[in-house]
């Protein structure tokens, strides 16, 4: 991946982050918004494989940890999105992913990502929350991400394929 393409990918993450923080709260359900940054990482995993997805997951996660209004311990979203990059990248086959497999990957990634974030919170006692509330947030998060998949994933995956067709085998 050359520097210009890397910059474009990070720009996509930045746009997703701003939309997630400033635009989507207006349609939030119980305060839960679609995790667009996670969707971009999943798209990278599906098109490019695990290694680039994990790298992007780390960069995106650190941004998510540091950009306002985040106030939790830095590195928690980074860890969660590195795991998501690994999960999404491992799903990749040498065939083009079908609609079903993309939706399933997004649902699994969303569940794993939010769960890893919540687990690190429980380990660090960052916010002391009940398991019931955490599960509710995870469930609504998965729902949101799956609903947004048909609008976000084709666009991002198409853009990644056009950016670097030679390396995108899926």
């Amino acid at each position, binding site marked *: 991946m050359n520097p210009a393409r890397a910059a474009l990918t990070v720009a996509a993450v930045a746009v997703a982050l701003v939309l*997630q923080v400033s635009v989507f709260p207006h349609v939030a359900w119980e305060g839960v918004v679609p*995790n667009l940054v996670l969707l971009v990482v999943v798209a990278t995993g599906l098109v490019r494989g695990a290694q680039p997805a994990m790298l992007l997951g780390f960069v995106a996660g650190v941004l998510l940890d540091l950009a*306002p209004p985040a106030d939790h*311990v830095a*590195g928690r979203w980074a860890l969660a999105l590195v795991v998501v990059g690994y999960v999404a990248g491992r799903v990749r086959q040498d065939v083009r992913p079908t609609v079903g497999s993309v939706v399933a990957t997004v649902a699994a990634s969303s569940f794993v990502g939010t769960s890893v974030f919540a687990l690190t*919170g429980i380990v660090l006692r960052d916010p002391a929350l009940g398991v019931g509330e955490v599960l509710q947030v995870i469930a609504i998060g998965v729902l949101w991400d799956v609903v947004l998949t048909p609008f976000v994933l084709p666009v991002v995956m198409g853009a990644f394929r056009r950016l670097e067709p030679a390396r995108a085998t899926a």
Partner: protein
Amino acid sequence: MAVQLFERPTRQQPGTGPGQPGRGNRPRERRWRVTERLEERGRPSRSLVVALVLACLSLITLDSATGEDSPVEPVRRVVGEVFGPVEVGAAAVVRPFVAVPDWFRTHGDLRGDIGELEAENARLRAEVNSADYDRNRLAEYDGLTAAAGDLGYSLVPARVVGLGPAQSFSSTVTIDAGSQSGLRPDMTVLNNDGLVGRVVRVTRTTATVLLIVDPDSVVGGRVGSSMELGSVRGRGQLGSTGRLDLELIDESDVPRQDDAVVTWGSEGGAPYVSGVPIGRVTAVYSSLRETAQRAVIEPYVDFAALDVVGVVVPSGTASDRAVIEADGSVR
């Protein structure tokens, strides 16, 4: 022969050849290479996985162990300087569209709203007139707000431009006023309904506010009718179900339902100035094992629909925008 073995490696049984040891070894070697190549495509290198996970863990340790003067704090500030203005811009672009659903409200809807408001008005008027203790409470309010006025505070108005997602399990917002407008960490944030939270971090143009519903937030509270002291903690829920817990220091005193809770106030007005309404008591619990009373507080502020807020700054603070003084004048 070698090509054929390469293409169908799994079907070849090692040692099924005519018995030459050299040929018996070759298919196994090929198969190993083929599987290794397939593995490479999906699996990232082990060193990268270890490096990334270690990087995350050391970042977490670094930030959680060092606390307030964490080395991550300057980086947060730099990222905030970059993303803050972008969030302000995005919120300004979206704001007109947020009002669109209101255009489609019918005459009947609006009439219903008026009816509800009139009923509420009548109920409130009856409450104010009926009981003496309500009148006393009002007098206390007046006293408290006058005290806040005497201390010489003024308000910097700001708008909420970013809301942390519930997936992060913390309740923080970004507002579009920063150090340029005279804001510093540990300043009280309120709106026309009551206490909103406190400033935890500022950049030049934006500030991050920890809401009082956040599980990490603790506010000194005072029950308006009895002047009892306690601490108010958040539960981490936004919206109409968001509640706070009040733990009273004196176990003998039982707050009544609908009692108002206001801020106790900290020395020097940081992080909370005194006398700002927080919420009303909806239920009281006491247990023999716990030495304190616990009351459930419904906050006056609707945290799911935060927009215009005010930040309490010392009177005479230099700011890049109009500042509302304690007497109501705009400077």
